[in-house]
């Protein structure tokens, strides 16, 4: 895989995890396993800063590549 697409792949994986956690959260809520609901909700929230971090890191890497050219 080309190096510049690694960040895109990571972000896609994060989005997939978001979908999985959301599905799990809603189901566990209706099964009244509230601790599991909170855990998966917290994971969903933590994934957002992770996504921002990946985006920023990618921007930095792109700038670095351009200045080396």
């Amino acid at each position, binding site marked *: 895989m080309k190096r510049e697409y690694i*960040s895109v792949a990571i972000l896609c994986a994060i*989005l997939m995890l978001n979908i999985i956690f*959301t599905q799990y959260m809603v189901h566990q809520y209706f099964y009244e396993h509230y601790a599991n609901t909170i855990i998966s909700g917290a994971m969903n929230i933590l994934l*957002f800063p992770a996504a921002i971090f*990946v*985006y920023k890191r990618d921007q930095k890497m792109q700038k670095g590549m351009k200045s080396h050219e």
Partner: protein
Amino acid sequence: MTENNNKIPFNEDNYTHNINRNNERKLDRRGFMKTLVGAAGVFAISSLPWGATAAKELMGLGDKEYPHKKITDLKSIGVGDAVDFAFPGEHDSAILIRLSDEKFVAYQNACTHLRCPVFWDKKEEEMICPCHHGKFDVQTGSPIAGPPRRPLPEIQVKVDKGAVYAVRVKRYET
């Protein structure tokens, strides 16, 4: 007219030659990544209310006893009849069914599939959701046919001085 064919744009009889669609919906790599991050943000925010209500339930606020609410008089509900009411809130529709002289059952009657109102079929002696023909056992509220997979929330009732009262919503036994 025939000599105009295959010459694009035609003079005067072409009304679209000046519309330039290049790059109209361009989505480059960075724009795509921004969309992904935004989607992650939407997921994060949308999971907040679920976490909040789950935390509320965990702290035991969901299991509180509501003020007793009179559903109906004993006289006005015969054996095998059903009465609709709302408990605990005015939008939480529920159904009371008298199975015998002594035995009453009550459930919140929003179908656990897609929340259609479940009604009592006296002839078949089962509770039926008309939307997708989900059926529930009247004794326990558990689903016996159709798409629903979770039981209806049961409401505990009390007979007191010739009237039926709703007391509390029973938790699922998991």
